[in-house]
């Protein structure tokens, strides 16, 4: 077992430097690109490169406490840039590089909204999107002070003379309670909630989580997860860097096009750990050609950890059936419950043990009580997300805030040594979610035999391939489409069994009755979604006053989904 107790007032930078001294030639980050030889950063070479970027940042006026947002594609220099930001006491925030389908105005508005909330000071990006971002710097009331293109900077700079003395003073002044990173919770770009985490929160968390997964110096992480997501950033980046173990970073967009890349990397690098959202198990089980598996061995894997969307037993079974002959062991199929607000993990199933599965009577869940049901077809299959990790406490509360016993369904409420202090510059959201040191997750779940099962959401969030989409955002977009009656739209998630995830559906009222014009309207609605990088999979057009309202006077997502998806009601156009 690796040392998991942290020193008092230790910062992440000091931990990384110690790791570079202890294991100078050990792989730290293996940068994976399809069809190329991977680039390997060692623990010493990445610190040296980070120092060079730190010199560049200081020269350009970046100060301790400044928030530096990175908006970059998969690039081997991304990692030392990130470390370089941290090394001068500034705060890195990883943002997603815009997808080509995202309209530039939407992207700019998203960054603008985020900058006002998160207080972004500097943007570190690439030349191709400079024109989109630059107007934000000159705008009145903008927090953004400048844009940098660090990939174009010199790569072998060092602090010398007075600059060296100064940077040493700055590093010594950084406390373990100072912020080390800014990550964003779920939501579309402009509405994401910023979560600021301290060195202590992150180091405590990786120590506690490291224990939960029995992390050893022999472990190697393989990941295609984006680093703007807490699962990628904490589990597959901060965790290995803090513990001094290697991580292999695959390009997210290449992985979704060539899912076998993950298997190739595991096989060649002898990976032991990976974190995957549920849909990835289906993609890997169904969408990989047999000939791409020639010579692949997955025997080295200790844990495939399912996290960030509801865990489906069927997905685990499909994955195991496909890969058992390649060395996947049933006990390697694990699960975790995590969120940005608690740094990352809250619960984890034990290593070397397959995640527990319960068959629960559907009617009993509706009543809020768990009654097991053997393997009956009418059961809801619930997969355990495991026990609380050290440093975390979980309660299940009823709607009046009373604690519920085991086997009762309620809201999952969490306390953690790595809990955030609140959403940055968002007091109203903080007050709603954080009460007396407990984070109200908005997830519904239950506890049985000390293991936690997450079964739903209090709010109508749609989880598409691990990404949370707020229906309000989709409804707002669609409401602006010509031909749609404003405000008379509902968006909801529809289960996609093949994908092992949800897809976005929309029901919109329109006065148009002509069938040909309906086709055009459907296309316009889908295109409206595309402009905000939201893929609307299905559109239901309905006549005026068709959508049922909730008691709050707005069209009800739940009731209308029930009519369209479950009852499949006929829609009559007069």
């Amino acid at each position, binding site marked *: 077992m690796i040392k998991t107790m942290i020193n008092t007032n230790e910062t992440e930078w000091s931990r990384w430097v110690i790791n570079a001294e202890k294991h100078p030639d050990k792989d730290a980050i293996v940068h994976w690109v399809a069809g190329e030889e991977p680039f390997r950063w060692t623990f010493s070479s990445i610190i040296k490169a980070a120092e060079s970027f730190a010199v560049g940042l200081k020269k350009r006026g970046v100060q301790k406490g400044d928030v530096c947002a990175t908006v970059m594609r998969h690039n081997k220099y991304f990692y030392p840039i990130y470390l370089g930001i941290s090394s001068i006491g500034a705060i890195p925030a990883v943002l997603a590089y815009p997808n080509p389908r995202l309209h530039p105005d939407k992207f700019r508005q998203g960054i603008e909204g985020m900058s006002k909330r998160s207080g972004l000071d500097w943007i570190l990006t690439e030349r191709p999107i400079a024109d989109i971002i630059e107007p934000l710097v000159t705008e009145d009331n903008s927090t953004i002070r400048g844009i940098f293109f660090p990939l174009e900077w010199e790569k072998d700079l060092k602090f010398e003379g007075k600059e060296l003395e100064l940077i040493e003073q700055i590093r010594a002044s950084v406390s373990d309670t100072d912020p080390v990173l800014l990550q964003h919770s779920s939501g579309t770009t402009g509405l994401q909630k910023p979560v600021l985490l301290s060195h202590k929160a992150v180091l405590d968390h990786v120590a506690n989580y490291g224990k939960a997964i029995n992390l050893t110096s022999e472990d190697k992480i393989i990941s295609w997860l984006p680093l703007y997501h807490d699962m990628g950033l904490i589990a597959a980046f901060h965790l290995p860097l803090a513990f001094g173990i290697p991580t292999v970073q695959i390009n997210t967009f290449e992985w979704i096009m060539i899912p076998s890349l993950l298997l190739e990397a595991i096989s060649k690098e002898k990976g032991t750990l990976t974190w995957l959202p549920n849909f990835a198990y289906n993609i890997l089980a169904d*969408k990989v050609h047999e000939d*791409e598996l020639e010579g692949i061995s997955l025997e080295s894997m200790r844990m495939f950890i399912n996290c960030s969307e509801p865990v489906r037993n069927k997905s685990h079974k499909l994955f195991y059936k496909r890969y058992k002959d390649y060395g996947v062991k049933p006990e390697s199929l694990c699960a975790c419950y995590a969120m940005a607000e608690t740094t990352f993990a809250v619960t984890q199933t034990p290593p070397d043990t397959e995640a527990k599965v319960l068959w629960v009577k559907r009617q009993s869940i509706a009543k809020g009580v768990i009654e097991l049901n053997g393997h009956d077809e009418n059961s809801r299959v619930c997969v355990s997300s495991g026990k609380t990790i050290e440093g975390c406490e979980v309660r299940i509360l009823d709607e009046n805030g009373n604690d519920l016993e085991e086997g009762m369904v309620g809201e999952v409420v969490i306390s953690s040594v790595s809990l955030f202090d609140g959403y940055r510059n968002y007091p109203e959201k903080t007050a709603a979610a954080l009460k007396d040191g407990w984070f109200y997750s908005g997830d519904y779940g239950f506890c049985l035999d000390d293991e936690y099962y997450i079964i739903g959401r209090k709010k109508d969030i749609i989880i598409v*391939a691990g990404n949370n989409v707020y229906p309000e955002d989709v409804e707002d977009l669609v409401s602006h489409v010509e031909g749609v009656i404003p405000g008379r739209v509902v968006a909801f998630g529809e289960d996609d069994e093949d*994908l092992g995830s949800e897809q976005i559906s929309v029901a919109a009222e329109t006065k148009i009755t002509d069938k040909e014009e309906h086709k055009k309207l459907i*296309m316009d609605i*889908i*295109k409206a979604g*595309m402009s905000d990088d939201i893929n609307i*999979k299905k559109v239901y057009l309905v006549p005026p006053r068709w959508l049922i309202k909730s008691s709050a006077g707005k069209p009800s997502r739940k009731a209308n989904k029930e009519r369209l998806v479950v009852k499949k009601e006929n829609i009559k156009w007069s």
Partner: protein
Amino acid sequence: MITEKFKKVILDELNLEDFDIQDDTTADQVPGWDSLNHINVILAVEKAFNVHFKGIEVLKCQNIGALQNLVNSKLEQK
């Protein structure tokens, strides 16, 4: 040159009635062709033409015309 059969396979897979697809059309311009559906489109094309692509070959396609050319070259190799 995009063939009618090739276009129809793509449109059917994406549940689109019609959409103008030219050689220089890129996947992100086609409604529904997002990263999640990309692999389904590729598998549908492979099945319709009874060909098999290597992942890296598809990754190198800059537009839909290049994917059509890849199909053509696979068919010629048969």
